[in-house]
């Protein structure tokens, strides 16, 4: 009895594992399956095998040409916003964190505590005043922030900085001061010391900050909705989640096209995950535990 259980258990575990894996993957599978059909066939039977896989490419072509989702412009808007936001978040948060660690004074404590405390603030409590405030800034200074890349990137710097400063702060505390002193003696200015000596050492934690903020910014819905608006005017800046949302709103129940659109919205990040899986998991998990 005991012996047979020992032989059966691994097999049972394996069967269970495969079953759970299948359950987890079914939604993706259903998306691909039905993105390769025409609407009538989906209504008829959403779990049947597609009649011809060529329909998948026809549907993808339809999405690419659709003026409502505007796939490529939306994709590039999302990409521009994500890349620029990440660049400013990483550089400016690291700079700020370094100054805060290397100056032990009342003001550095106050600023650091401010960043930490702000992590509790949910977006909901600042989002309405933020829009009014941005409009006010435009009236007073003439700088346009609403419906602009500039406003998006500036907002992401503000919202991303508290967590990022916190993560950099924790890491820089462990960087030996001797390294910086040596470079100062060699005649490096303070900014040069930071960019030539400190910043390169931060590389592993920079990856964490990039991934943590990157996934958030790329998938974010509410902040772009507030700053860019939900309209679909020609030439307006619009991110991919906003585009998908407005597309679904106007093509109610056209599941062939909706599912193709969701497939194409998921694809970029899944492809990235295939290449950078190790870093993505590490970055997202480490960031949360801190």
């Amino acid at each position, binding site marked *: 009895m005991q012996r047979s259980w020992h032989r059966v258990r691994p097999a049972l*575990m394996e069967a269970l*594992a495969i079953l759970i*894996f299948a359950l*987890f993957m079914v*939604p*993706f599978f*259903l998306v691909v399956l*039905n993105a390769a059909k025409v609407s009538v066939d*989906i209504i008829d*039977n*959403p*779990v049947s095998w597609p009649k011809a896989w060529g329909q998948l490419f026809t549907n993808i072509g339809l999405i690419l040409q659709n003026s409502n989702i505007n796939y490529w412009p939306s994709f590039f808007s999302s990409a521009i916003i994500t890349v620029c936001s990440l660049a400013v978040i990483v550089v*400016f*948060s690291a*700079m*700020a964190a*370094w*100054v*805060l660690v290397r*100056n032990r004074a009342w003001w550095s404590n106050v600023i650091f505590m401010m*960043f930490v405390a*702000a992590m*509790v*603030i*949910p977006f*909901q*409590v*600042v989002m*309405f*005043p933020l829009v*009014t*405030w941005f409009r006010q*800034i435009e009236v007073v200074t003439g700088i346009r922030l609403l419906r602009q890349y500039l406003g998006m990137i*500036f907002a992401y*710097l*503000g*919202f991303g*900085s508290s967590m990022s400063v916190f993560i950099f702060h924790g890491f820089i505390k462990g960087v030996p001061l001797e390294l910086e002193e040596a470079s100062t003696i060699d005649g490096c200015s*303070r*900014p040069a010391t*930071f960019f030539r000596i400190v910043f390169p050492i931060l590389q592993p934690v920079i990856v964490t900050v990039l991934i943590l903020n990157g*996934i958030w910014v*790329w998938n*974010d*819905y*509410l902040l772009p909705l507030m700053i860019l608006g939900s309209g679909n005017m020609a030439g307006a800046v619009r991110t991919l*989640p906003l585009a*998908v*949302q407005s597309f679904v709103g106007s093509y109610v129940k056209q*599941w062939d096209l909706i599912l193709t659109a*969701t497939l194409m919205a*998921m694809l970029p*990040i899944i492809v990235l*995950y295939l290449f950078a899986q190790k870093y*993505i*998991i590490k970055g*997202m*998990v480490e960031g*949360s*535990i801190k």
Partner: protein
Amino acid sequence: MRTKNRWVNVLFLFPAVFAFLMVIVVPFFVGIYLSMTNWDGVNPNVIFTGLQNYTTIFQAPEFLYSFLATTAFTAINVALVNAVAFGLALLVTSRVRGRNVYRAAFFVPNLIGGIVLGYIWQFIFNNVLPAMGRSLGLGFLQTSLIAKANLVVLGISLVNTWQYAGYIMMIYVAGIQAIPASLMEAAETDGANYPTRLVRILMPMMASAFTICLFLTLVNSFKQFDVNVSLTNGGPATIFMMKAINSSEFLALNIYNTAFARSKLAQGQAKAVLFFVVLVVVSLIQVWVNKRKEVEM
């Protein structure tokens, strides 16, 4: 030299601190003020009304219901996500073949935005499951889970579990791997069977992972928005305190709809301030729990 250093400090701090002040600090305080006015976003004449918005929202059944629904969702979701995530963590740290592939795969849903996921699951709940129910003759599958006012919260929780469990699993995995293997082996030699080892050794040894995950899922569930919008958008309608209300309109969505769909910006802001207060209380409890544990250790 010293004054030069000071300039470097100011220059280095300026971009991050400036953006932070402009985007979070100023709107935060402006927002608290505006929650006590008749602000509507259009009329520039904003009049201070004290706590009137707060008393109004407390008397509104839809807000009370939204609060209860969010709390129910949070309770169900915290339990479901953590149970599934812990189970998955045990699975991928066992000796089962292909465990690394499973670990990577369970993480995937978490990379995709809630808006996109919500639409996919709307399709599954409204089309795939009823179709399967019809062909298999299973009555309970034939009406969509998210079309029933009493079950819709569970439906959203299922989606959130699918989305989030892989992420929480990773934290549990880290916790399990931090336990020295010799400890579990010693217990095995002493004759402790698997459930005993699990409950008596593994779980107590990773108590901090449980604390992290519980608070993470708690805050995350309470803030649920994206999936809520795309999966149900608050529906279906139901009756509460003799008023028609949305049965799955969680707080974040309720705040948004109060401000835009119902054009009551100041009331929406007052709700947001309350939302913030609840989250502060949760965070303070978390800090307190962590402090207490440090003393014990």
